[in-house]
């Protein structure tokens, strides 16, 4: 099975380890992973700030980059959600590009979604003897409908001590440009999230979106809290290799 990785700009630039974990896992499950070099960003920062024309051109670049892919997998529910939820709308007035956008939607998956729904795997044979809590990302849950998948994967991990995060569905306050533009609102939200994470006593916070994790992790760092923040792919990969 040929699978193209959409790394997302954030993971490309700041969290390359996440991409490496995704690629290693997919490749262990028989996927032939490639990395279309032309990809950059899904355009969400511009789109969510109201700059639809600007977002459209960045989207065009992404559509082109994956035009010949069979499957596209990304470690972000938010960027995948952007493509699924808004790309067809962005090209409403360009039938040819709208069709291309829809084609991309049809083959694009978030990482946990791809593992569970397409590859049909939930038990990766990982063991992770740590106290872990999980923050579900808003866009994965609500734009993409990915709710059960990450939990299915986590529940199969051996020796994990899983604790539920109080008020887990509450947004962490990232929201892309929101975190800077409405810094005070965002601060109130991320502070509450950090308090909830710490209240679990977990050593590890796991999630499926580096945007949210950069936000919560950045807060935990600033507070000097000793919580390790990981993408689900990293946790699974570490749990597989440490066995």
């Amino acid at each position, binding site marked *: 099975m040929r699978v193209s990785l959409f790394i997302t700009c954030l993971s490309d630039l700041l969290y390359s380890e996440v991409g490496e974990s995704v690629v290693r896992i997919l490749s262990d499950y028989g996927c032939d992973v490639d990395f279309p070099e032309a990809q950059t960003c899904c355009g969400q920062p511009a789109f*969510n700030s109201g700059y639809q024309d600007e977002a459209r051109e960045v989207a065009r670049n992404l559509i082109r980059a994956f035009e010949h892919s069979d499957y596209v997998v990304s470690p972000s529910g938010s960027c995948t959600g952007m493509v699924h939820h808004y790309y067809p709308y962005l090209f409403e007035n360009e039938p040819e590009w709208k069709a291309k956008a829809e084609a991309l939607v049809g083959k694009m998956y978030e990482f946990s979604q791809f593992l569970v729904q397409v590859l049909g795997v939930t038990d990766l044979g990982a063991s992770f003897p740590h106290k872990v809590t999980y923050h579900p990302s808003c866009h994965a849950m609500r734009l993409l409908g990915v709710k059960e998948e990450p939990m299915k994967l986590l529940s199969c991990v051996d020796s994990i001590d899983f604790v539920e995060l109080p008020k887990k569905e509450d947004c962490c306050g990232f929201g892309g440009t929101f975190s800077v533009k409405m810094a005070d609102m965002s601060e109130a939200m991320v502070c509450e999230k950090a308090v909830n994470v710490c209240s679990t006593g977990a050593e590890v916070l796991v999630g499926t979106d580096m945007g949210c994790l950069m936000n919560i992790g950045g*807060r935990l760092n600033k507070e000097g809290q000793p919580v390790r923040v990981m993408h689900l792919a990293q946790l699974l990969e570490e749990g597989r290799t440490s066995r």
Partner: protein
Amino acid sequence: MSVQAGHGQDTNMDERIGSGLKQRTKQALQDEFLRKAVAFTTDKLKNGRLQAMDAFGDWEAWRDRGRAIREHTNSHLDYYLSQFADNVAGNGGHVYFCSGADDAVKTFMGIADRHKAKLVAKGKSMVSEEIHLNHHLEDRGIEAIETDLGEYILQLARETPSHLIIPAIHKNKQQIADLFTDASGQHFEPETKVLAEYARKKLRNYFLEADIGLTGCNFGVAESGSITLVSNEGNGRMVSTLPKVHVVVMGMERLVPTFEDLEVVLNLLARSATGQKLTTYTSILTGARHPEDLDGPEELHVIILDNGRSAQLGDPIFQEVLNCIRCAACLNVCPVYRHVGGHTYGSVYSGPIGAVLTPLLQQDMKEAGTLSYASSLCGACYEACPVKIPLHDMLVHLRHRKVKMKLTSLPERAAFKTFQTVFGSVTLYKLATKSGYYLQKPLVRGGMIKAGPAPLSGWTQSRFMPMMPKQSFRDKWAALQAELAAKKAAREEQR
């Protein structure tokens, strides 16, 4: 105790809806009482809603039904409005269509003048807040008494509602007891029962003395011309039956075609709002007092307000906002509302629905349109909305309107043009991100960026930022590929 009609402008309504937003946010965030009170009550309502949804079963199907009913009504609003108006008139009521707030106020004053009204008893009505009726009544020397307990508390405090259904959500018991103590000269302990009992007794007299009873309308039923009022205190029933004249003020979109439809939306409303199966009181009023009736007002006047609503009809993106049934579920789940409360929005309508509705009704993108930024776009509002209004999408589209109207700052516009250029081509992207690595260096301390100039300071005020490592994923790709190829070769050899 004498009560003045509350202006509220000293505390809440802000001309600078947009430009004052950040200031109001800061203020609210410093108000520990407010934050505790709002979080406490929204949590309670949120949990109540979830339980009620589960108990009801098939929630998604009910939501679809509700949405379909509202969608159908608003897509044929001219038809249902005229049917509704004909039926109200057929039952002896008077109907007035008012295009704007001034018009509606004038119409109300006309009715008040004809009856030489001195005292108006009010049931809860967001539309009367929207047209700032209390303010105009005070100017005219007409006393208006809010008979909803929450609204009454706010009237004492001279504030406006900060929530659609729990107007005084931002006040805790102690603050309420203090208000009652100040107003009555009698000492009150912060005990809900005592406070409610006192207010109930006090308000009873007003129902009997009032010249006019004023209410809103939760749903007008087109097929019969009936006004449906829901409440948990029963004051709506008193206000609409005891005074001689009953005046209803309602938005033009607040209709359902039939009683069968009413059943659906009432179920959705009560469950979404408070988690109740049905509100304690549901009054369905059809016309003024009929000869065979034991009670009821002698006259019924129905003021139907447009005030920016019809401008949304036919709009492919925003018409749906008219489907709102004002349940406040979106406020209760909103993480922004939870921290800053309703007054931060500077508008009668707050929370996600307020952030969308206010700029649309006021047709003002410059100030009111700024409310669209008061959201992280998490989509909790959409998920909770019983009629599935995609508020998170609408917020983004409002921001787009701002951009199209050139109402965003020059530096911001330039930044996104640059974003388009740089992220639209991988060559430029690579170039820019490599220079980014060197540019960040003066800011990095111990592998982190802990402080930076604006706009980065917005981030660093509450969080650290990881520094950009020298190698990006794409820089590592060749090595990763080689690793995988070697692994594959080893596997094949084993076979």
